[in-house]
Protein backbone atom coordinates (compact mmCIF):
# COMPACT_ATOMS: atom_id res chain seq x y z
CA UNK A 1 0.00 0.00 0.00
CA UNK A 2 2.75 2.44 1.02
CA UNK A 3 4.70 1.48 -2.10
CA UNK A 4 1.74 2.43 -4.25
CA UNK A 5 1.70 5.88 -2.65
CA UNK A 6 5.49 6.24 -2.83
CA UNK A 7 5.47 5.55 -6.62
CA UNK A 8 9.20 4.79 -6.57
CA UNK A 9 10.94 8.13 -6.18
CA UNK A 10 8.15 10.01 -7.92
CA UNK A 11 5.48 10.06 -5.21
CA UNK A 12 6.56 13.41 -3.79
CA UNK A 13 6.26 15.06 -7.23
CA UNK A 14 2.96 13.45 -8.15
CA UNK A 15 1.22 13.95 -4.79
CA UNK A 16 2.39 17.54 -4.36
CA UNK A 17 0.92 18.44 -7.76
CA UNK A 18 -2.38 16.70 -6.99
CA UNK A 19 -2.75 18.19 -3.50
CA UNK A 20 -2.04 21.76 -4.70
CA UNK A 21 -4.25 21.37 -7.78
CA UNK A 22 -7.20 19.90 -5.88
CA UNK A 23 -6.86 22.70 -3.29
CA UNK A 24 -6.92 25.38 -5.98
CA UNK A 25 -9.82 23.73 -7.84
CA UNK A 26 -11.92 23.51 -4.66
CA UNK A 27 -11.06 27.15 -3.88
CA UNK A 28 -11.99 28.19 -7.44
CA UNK A 29 -15.36 26.49 -7.11
CA UNK A 30 -16.13 27.78 -3.63
CA UNK A 31 -15.11 31.43 -4.11
CA UNK A 32 -17.96 32.61 -6.38
CA UNK A 33 -20.57 30.74 -4.30
CA UNK A 34 -19.27 32.30 -1.06
CA UNK A 35 -19.07 35.75 -2.67
CA UNK A 36 -22.67 35.48 -3.86
CA UNK A 37 -23.84 34.45 -0.39
CA UNK A 38 -21.89 37.34 1.17
CA UNK A 39 -23.34 39.85 -1.30
CA UNK A 40 -26.83 38.57 -0.70
CA UNK A 41 -26.46 38.89 3.07
CA UNK A 42 -24.98 42.39 2.73
CA UNK A 43 -27.83 43.50 0.47
CA UNK A 44 -30.56 42.14 2.71
CA UNK A 45 -28.94 43.73 5.81
CA UNK A 46 -28.88 47.09 4.02
CA UNK A 47 -32.52 46.73 3.06
CA UNK A 48 -33.43 46.05 6.68
CA UNK A 49 -31.57 49.19 7.81
CA UNK A 50 -33.25 51.32 5.10
Amino acid at each position, binding site marked *: MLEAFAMGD*HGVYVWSVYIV*SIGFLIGLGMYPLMS*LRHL*KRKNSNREEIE
Partner: protein
Amino acid sequence: MSPEIFFRGSLMWVYCLYLIGILGLSLGTIWGLFFVPPEKFQGDSFRIMFIHVPAAHLSQIIYIGIAVAGVVYIVWRTKMADVFMAAAAPVGLITTGLALLSGIVWGKPTWGTWWVWDARTISVLILFFLFFGQIALRQAVSRPERAAFAVSVLAIVGAINIPIIKYSVEWFTTLHQPASITLTRESAISMVFLIPLLINIASFYIYIAGVVLAGMRTLVLRRHKHTSWVQAWTGSS
Protein backbone atom coordinates in the same frame (compact mmCIF):
# COMPACT_ATOMS: atom_id res chain seq x y z
CA MET B 1 -29.71 38.31 -22.89
CA SER B 2 -30.64 40.59 -20.01
CA PRO B 3 -28.62 40.26 -16.77
CA GLU B 4 -31.79 39.34 -14.85
CA ILE B 5 -32.73 36.48 -17.20
CA PHE B 6 -29.12 35.27 -17.12
CA PHE B 7 -28.97 35.41 -13.33
CA ARG B 8 -32.25 33.59 -12.80
CA GLY B 9 -31.69 30.98 -15.51
CA SER B 10 -28.09 30.06 -14.76
CA LEU B 11 -28.32 28.71 -11.19
CA MET B 12 -29.37 25.20 -12.22
CA TRP B 13 -26.60 25.15 -14.85
CA VAL B 14 -23.99 26.05 -12.23
CA TYR B 15 -25.01 23.16 -9.98
CA CYS B 16 -25.24 20.68 -12.88
CA LEU B 17 -21.82 21.67 -14.24
CA TYR B 18 -20.25 21.50 -10.78
CA LEU B 19 -21.75 18.07 -10.11
CA ILE B 20 -20.80 16.51 -13.47
CA GLY B 21 -17.35 18.15 -13.36
CA ILE B 22 -16.56 16.92 -9.83
CA LEU B 23 -17.77 13.39 -10.58
CA GLY B 24 -15.77 13.26 -13.82
CA LEU B 25 -12.62 14.69 -12.24
CA SER B 26 -12.86 12.21 -9.37
CA LEU B 27 -13.26 9.31 -11.81
CA GLY B 28 -10.45 10.42 -14.14
CA THR B 29 -8.07 11.25 -11.29
CA ILE B 30 -8.62 8.01 -9.34
CA TRP B 31 -8.33 6.02 -12.59
CA GLY B 32 -5.15 7.84 -13.58
CA LEU B 33 -3.55 7.57 -10.14
CA PHE B 34 -4.39 4.01 -9.15
CA PHE B 35 -5.55 1.95 -12.15
CA VAL B 36 -3.09 2.90 -14.90
CA PRO B 37 0.32 1.14 -15.06
CA PRO B 38 3.53 3.20 -14.84
CA GLU B 39 4.73 4.58 -18.16
CA LYS B 40 7.68 2.71 -19.73
CA PHE B 41 10.18 5.61 -19.80
CA GLN B 42 8.87 8.13 -17.26
CA GLY B 43 7.74 5.74 -14.52
CA ASP B 44 5.06 7.17 -12.25
CA SER B 45 5.84 10.86 -12.80
CA PHE B 46 3.75 10.75 -15.99
CA ARG B 47 0.63 10.72 -13.75
CA ILE B 48 1.09 14.50 -13.44
CA MET B 49 -0.17 14.53 -17.05
CA PHE B 50 -3.76 14.02 -15.82
CA ILE B 51 -3.60 17.48 -14.24
CA HIS B 52 -1.07 19.21 -16.48
CA VAL B 53 -2.68 18.54 -19.87
CA PRO B 54 -6.26 19.58 -18.92
CA ALA B 55 -4.98 22.73 -17.15
CA ALA B 56 -2.81 23.69 -20.13
CA HIS B 57 -5.63 23.03 -22.63
CA LEU B 58 -8.12 24.99 -20.62
CA SER B 59 -5.92 28.02 -19.99
CA GLN B 60 -5.62 28.54 -23.75
CA ILE B 61 -9.33 27.98 -24.37
CA ILE B 62 -10.20 30.49 -21.63
CA TYR B 63 -7.93 33.07 -23.22
CA ILE B 64 -9.49 32.47 -26.66
CA GLY B 65 -12.93 32.91 -25.04
CA ILE B 66 -11.81 36.20 -23.45
CA ALA B 67 -10.41 37.44 -26.76
CA VAL B 68 -13.69 36.60 -28.56
CA ALA B 69 -15.62 38.36 -25.77
CA GLY B 70 -13.28 41.33 -26.24
CA VAL B 71 -14.24 41.53 -29.92
CA VAL B 72 -17.94 41.23 -29.03
CA TYR B 73 -17.59 44.03 -26.46
CA ILE B 74 -15.74 46.38 -28.80
CA VAL B 75 -18.13 45.80 -31.71
CA TRP B 76 -21.50 45.60 -29.91
CA ARG B 77 -20.74 46.95 -26.39
CA THR B 78 -22.42 43.84 -24.94
CA LYS B 79 -22.25 44.07 -21.15
CA MET B 80 -22.38 40.31 -20.64
CA ALA B 81 -19.22 39.99 -22.75
CA ASP B 82 -17.49 42.27 -20.26
CA VAL B 83 -18.90 40.24 -17.36
CA PHE B 84 -17.51 37.09 -18.97
CA MET B 85 -14.05 38.66 -19.36
CA ALA B 86 -14.03 39.80 -15.73
CA ALA B 87 -15.15 36.38 -14.43
CA ALA B 88 -12.89 34.29 -16.67
CA ALA B 89 -9.58 36.15 -16.19
CA PRO B 90 -8.91 35.01 -12.57
CA VAL B 91 -9.93 31.45 -13.52
CA GLY B 92 -7.51 31.56 -16.46
CA LEU B 93 -4.79 32.85 -14.16
CA ILE B 94 -5.27 29.89 -11.82
CA THR B 95 -5.45 27.24 -14.57
CA THR B 96 -2.34 28.66 -16.26
CA GLY B 97 -0.61 28.72 -12.86
CA LEU B 98 -1.54 25.07 -12.37
CA ALA B 99 -0.25 24.18 -15.85
CA LEU B 100 3.04 25.94 -15.11
CA LEU B 101 3.40 24.47 -11.63
CA SER B 102 2.59 20.92 -12.71
CA GLY B 103 4.96 21.32 -15.68
CA ILE B 104 7.75 22.54 -13.38
CA VAL B 105 7.29 19.60 -10.99
CA TRP B 106 6.98 17.13 -13.88
CA GLY B 107 10.16 18.55 -15.43
CA LYS B 108 12.40 17.64 -12.50
CA PRO B 109 12.08 13.82 -12.64
CA THR B 110 11.63 13.77 -16.44
CA TRP B 111 14.15 16.33 -17.76
CA GLY B 112 16.34 16.59 -14.66
CA THR B 113 15.56 20.28 -14.21
CA TRP B 114 12.69 22.33 -12.80
CA TRP B 115 12.66 24.92 -15.56
CA VAL B 116 14.11 25.61 -18.99
CA TRP B 117 13.77 28.90 -20.82
CA ASP B 118 12.41 27.51 -24.06
CA ALA B 119 9.65 28.66 -26.40
CA ARG B 120 6.84 26.61 -24.84
CA THR B 121 7.53 27.53 -21.21
CA ILE B 122 8.12 31.21 -22.02
CA SER B 123 4.95 31.53 -24.12
CA VAL B 124 2.86 29.91 -21.35
CA LEU B 125 4.51 32.22 -18.80
CA ILE B 126 3.49 35.14 -21.03
CA LEU B 127 -0.08 33.77 -21.03
CA PHE B 128 0.04 33.78 -17.21
CA PHE B 129 1.10 37.45 -17.23
CA LEU B 130 -1.57 38.29 -19.82
CA PHE B 131 -4.25 36.98 -17.44
CA PHE B 132 -2.61 38.90 -14.61
CA GLY B 133 -2.55 41.99 -16.83
CA GLN B 134 -6.28 41.63 -17.52
CA ILE B 135 -7.05 41.69 -13.79
CA ALA B 136 -4.59 44.49 -13.00
CA LEU B 137 -5.79 46.68 -15.88
CA ARG B 138 -9.42 46.35 -14.80
CA GLN B 139 -8.45 47.39 -11.27
CA ALA B 140 -6.31 50.29 -12.49
CA VAL B 141 -8.91 52.02 -14.70
CA SER B 142 -11.59 53.68 -12.57
CA ARG B 143 -14.37 54.07 -15.19
CA PRO B 144 -15.94 50.65 -15.87
CA GLU B 145 -16.60 51.31 -19.59
CA ARG B 146 -13.02 52.41 -20.19
CA ALA B 147 -11.70 49.47 -18.18
CA ALA B 148 -13.79 47.05 -20.25
CA PHE B 149 -12.53 48.64 -23.49
CA ALA B 150 -8.90 48.53 -22.36
CA VAL B 151 -9.21 44.91 -21.22
CA SER B 152 -10.82 43.98 -24.56
CA VAL B 153 -7.96 45.54 -26.51
CA LEU B 154 -5.40 43.74 -24.34
CA ALA B 155 -7.27 40.45 -24.80
CA ILE B 156 -7.34 40.80 -28.60
CA VAL B 157 -3.68 41.84 -28.87
CA GLY B 158 -2.60 39.08 -26.49
CA ALA B 159 -4.38 36.44 -28.56
CA ILE B 160 -1.32 36.39 -30.84
CA ASN B 161 0.33 34.36 -28.06
CA ILE B 162 -2.07 31.41 -28.49
CA PRO B 163 -0.76 30.12 -31.86
CA ILE B 164 2.76 30.76 -30.55
CA ILE B 165 2.04 28.43 -27.60
CA LYS B 166 0.53 25.80 -29.88
CA TYR B 167 3.26 25.78 -32.52
CA SER B 168 6.21 26.58 -30.24
CA VAL B 169 7.14 22.89 -30.04
CA GLU B 170 7.24 22.67 -33.85
CA TRP B 171 8.83 26.05 -34.69
CA PHE B 172 11.59 25.96 -32.08
CA THR B 173 13.93 23.42 -30.52
CA THR B 174 12.48 22.61 -27.12
CA LEU B 175 12.54 19.92 -24.46
CA HIS B 176 8.73 19.87 -24.46
CA GLN B 177 7.20 17.06 -26.49
CA PRO B 178 4.92 17.83 -29.47
CA ALA B 179 1.13 17.56 -29.06
CA SER B 180 0.15 13.95 -28.31
CA ILE B 181 -3.58 14.39 -28.95
CA THR B 182 -4.68 16.02 -32.20
CA LEU B 183 -7.88 15.96 -34.20
CA THR B 184 -6.11 15.23 -37.47
CA ARG B 185 -3.73 12.42 -36.50
CA GLU B 186 -3.99 9.25 -34.48
CA SER B 187 -3.14 9.84 -30.82
CA ALA B 188 0.45 9.18 -29.78
CA ILE B 189 -0.78 8.03 -26.36
CA SER B 190 -1.87 4.45 -25.66
CA MET B 191 -5.59 3.97 -24.98
CA VAL B 192 -4.74 2.85 -21.41
CA PHE B 193 -3.57 6.39 -20.65
CA LEU B 194 -5.80 8.21 -23.12
CA ILE B 195 -9.20 7.29 -21.65
CA PRO B 196 -8.64 8.69 -18.11
CA LEU B 197 -6.88 11.69 -19.67
CA LEU B 198 -9.85 12.47 -21.92
CA ILE B 199 -12.23 12.03 -18.96
CA ASN B 200 -10.17 14.55 -16.97
CA ILE B 201 -9.94 17.01 -19.87
CA ALA B 202 -13.72 16.90 -20.46
CA SER B 203 -14.46 17.14 -16.71
CA PHE B 204 -12.03 20.06 -16.30
CA TYR B 205 -13.89 21.90 -19.07
CA ILE B 206 -17.27 21.19 -17.47
CA TYR B 207 -16.18 22.15 -13.94
CA ILE B 208 -14.44 25.34 -15.05
CA ALA B 209 -17.49 26.30 -17.17
CA GLY B 210 -19.50 26.06 -13.94
CA VAL B 211 -16.93 28.16 -12.07
CA VAL B 212 -16.95 30.89 -14.73
CA LEU B 213 -20.75 30.86 -14.81
CA ALA B 214 -20.88 31.15 -11.01
CA GLY B 215 -18.39 34.02 -11.16
CA MET B 216 -20.52 35.78 -13.79
CA ARG B 217 -23.60 35.46 -11.55
CA THR B 218 -21.73 37.10 -8.68
CA LEU B 219 -20.55 39.94 -10.90
CA VAL B 220 -24.04 40.47 -12.31
CA LEU B 221 -25.44 40.71 -8.79
CA ARG B 222 -22.68 43.13 -7.72
CA ARG B 223 -23.15 45.38 -10.75
CA HIS B 224 -26.94 45.47 -10.47
CA LYS B 225 -27.28 45.61 -6.70
CA HIS B 226 -29.41 48.77 -6.81
CA THR B 227 -31.95 47.40 -9.29
CA SER B 228 -35.39 46.29 -8.16
CA TRP B 229 -34.97 42.67 -9.29
CA VAL B 230 -31.79 42.21 -7.22
CA GLN B 231 -33.43 43.74 -4.17
CA ALA B 232 -36.48 41.52 -4.70
CA TRP B 233 -34.21 38.46 -5.01
CA THR B 234 -32.18 39.24 -1.88
CA GLY B 235 -35.35 39.96 0.06
CA SER B 236 -37.33 36.95 -1.15
CA SER B 237 -34.99 34.16 -0.10
